[in-house]
């Protein structure tokens, strides 16, 4: 039997036993349900804004005001609806009850509930102006076209110099969420590797295994099986998020264009980051013999990962700051920081190449180091195995 066929069997067992285990299924079910619910809920709540703004018209309404309101509303990027009201007291009631946003009384008074909306003031004011003055100009003998020329406001373009492109903003948010997902996934599945290693030591199954396969096969099988489960989970969560977001109305945002690259890059950086850390987690796990002792040992990888995560959050705000830039070159932190800088368009191609090559080399070193410690510590049960001892024992 070829060694890799055995590795495949080991990986398959890891994957199936964990994927069909209750803890995984329950957690996944809960998280998926939550993600899938968020979109439709947010969509339903924010959908309320789609209602027309109601403008009440009371008393003696100057001729043509209603028509002017409807036409001018488009220029103001508003969707309005006029509501006929009897008199001033009726208008007051309607405003107080919130039935209308504003009421125009006798063409000479605007009623607001608490604060006057400048946009509505401008809209109503200009509409009344146009209707009343248009009638006056017509009386003076101007044709409708001539009076229009006088009354139509001179168009002045409005430009905001520092406005975020909603698409870019969406990409940044997606990358930010991706970084969090990546962090959680690497932490979670790294921990699975460590726990699986301890479990096999604690249950003494390791000797039964090692009478059939070499330590490196157990290690690679475990890392691969759990890593595959990590990919599946990542894909499910990202897919659920993608579906969920469809329920939220985001004008000017192409969800596919923002989301799909993030999902693809998430997979890439997970494979890289997980490989980097999984062997470290395995080495750490192999030095203890009981799950209770694992929490202390596992602080080593967590302490290395944590700054990377924090720097990724910094990078989301300020991708060109010195901290995130340097962190995005250093192998342990590349998988967290570089994707965020990439999404923000702040990383140069040479930086990406440097980061990926560096991380791959780092991963290879850790695979070698981790495997050796793992092999040396695996058959030593009892207390905690010292790293130096495990290193030497690997030769036995």
């Amino acid at each position: 039997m070829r060694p890799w066929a055995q590795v495949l069997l080991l990986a398959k067992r890891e994957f199936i036993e964990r994927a069909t285990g209750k803890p995984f299924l329950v957690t996944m079910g809960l998280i998926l349900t939550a993600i899938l619910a968020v979109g439709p809920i947010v969509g339903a709540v924010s959908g309320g804004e789609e209602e027309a703004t109601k403008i009440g018209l009371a008393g003696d309404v100057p001729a043509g005001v209603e028509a002017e309101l409807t036409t001018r509303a488009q220029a103001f990027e508003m969707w309005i609806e006029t509501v006929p009201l009897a008199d001033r007291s009726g208008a007051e009631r309607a405003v107080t009850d919130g039935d209308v946003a504003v009421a125009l009384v006798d063409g000479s008074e605007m009623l607001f509930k608490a604060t006057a909306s400048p946009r509505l003031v401008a809209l109503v004011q200009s509409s009344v102006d146009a209707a009343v003055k248009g009638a006056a100009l017509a009386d003076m003998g101007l044709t409708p076209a001539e009076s229009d020329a006088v009354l139509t406001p001179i168009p002045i373009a409005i430009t905001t110099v520092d406005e975020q492109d909603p698409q870019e903003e969406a990409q940044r948010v997606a990358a930010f969420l991706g970084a969090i997902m990546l962090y959680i996934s690497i932490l979670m599945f790294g921990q699975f590797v460590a726990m699986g290693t301890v479990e096999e030591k604690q249950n003494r199954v390791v000797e039964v295994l090692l009478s059939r396969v070499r330590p490196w096969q157990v290690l690679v099988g475990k890392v691969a099986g759990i890593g595959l489960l990590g990919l599946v989970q990542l894909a499910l969560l990202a897919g659920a998020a993608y579906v969920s977001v469809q329920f939220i109305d985001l004008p000017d945002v192409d969800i596919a264009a923002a989301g799909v690259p993030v999902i693809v890059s998430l997979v890439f950086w997970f494979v890289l980051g997980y490989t980097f850390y999984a062997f470290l987690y395995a080495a750490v796990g192999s030095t203890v013999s009981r799950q209770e002792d694992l929490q202390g040992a596992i602080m080593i990888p967590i302490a290395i990962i944590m700054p990377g995560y924090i720097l990724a959050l910094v990078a989301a705000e300020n991708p060109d700051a010195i901290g995130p830039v340097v962190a995005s070159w250093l192998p342990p932190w590349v998988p967290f920081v570089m994707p965020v800088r990439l999404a923000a368009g702040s990383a140069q191609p040479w930086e990406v190449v440097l980061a990926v090559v560096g991380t791959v080399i780092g991963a290879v070193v850790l695979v070698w180091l981790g495997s050796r410690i793992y092999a040396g510590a695996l058959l030593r049960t009892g207390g905690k195995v010292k790293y130096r001892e495990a290193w030497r024992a690997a030769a036995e």
Partner: protein
Amino acid sequence: MLELVDLSKRFGGVVALDGAGFTVDRGRILGFLGPNGAGKTTAMRVVFGLLRPDGGTVRWNGGEVGPAERLRFGYMPEERGLYPKMKVRSQLVHFARLSGMSASDAADAVSHWLGMFGLTDRGDAKLEDLSHGNQQRIQLAAALAHKPELLILDEPFAGLDPIGVESLAENLRSLADEGVTIVFSSHQLDLVEDVCEDVAIINEGRVVVAGDLDDVRNRSAKRRLTVDVDGRPWIPDWPGVEVVDGPGPDHCIVDDDAPIEAFLTAASAVGTVNRFLFEPPRLTDLFREAVKT
């Protein structure tokens, strides 16, 4: 044929194996004996490549043992262990397949052994839900399912009740009849005497006695003398006589050229001799002699 040749192994300053070696022929059962810490487990681990010896080799049918040969071996370590939360059947299939069996062969073999142990209906139970004795049987099945040519069992009888002991002994005998070579360690010497054809006794890293059990007993320079005078054990108070208190009636160990007639005469002078046995030493006698330091 399994050959352990001149194995040596040190852990730091501790010598675990010091030129240890023995041979077992195909289809034979060898009892591997020795006090705690004598090197039994270390030797077994070396056979499976769990430890690399500092010197010496392990041969199987004349060739050096490597990973491919080891897949035809079965091992039950002293530290029992399987996955507690994994279902019995899928667990056994997993290990059989790791040893190179195809999926269908593994399924058949596992069904066979579950049937042999009367555990067919527990195949879908988690291992941890089985009784201690049944977990032991599953452990043995894990070592057996892939039809190994060599079976090495570290303390297989430990923790079994008398019925479990008898059924395991029967299983081992019938496996040996099918040509499986078996090595097992045990502290239950009566059991070893009952089950084994060959024996190897290790002490302080060296094999001090090895070979066919009957040969070893006959070849010994000692004899066991059991005398009953007037219903009580009689033991001569002579130089060179080593008194043994039980198990069984008190007796003594003497040199094989000891003067039998003189013993008999002396015993007759005390009272009526009901029983006078002068025989090759038992395994317990050999063991005690071998590990005397």
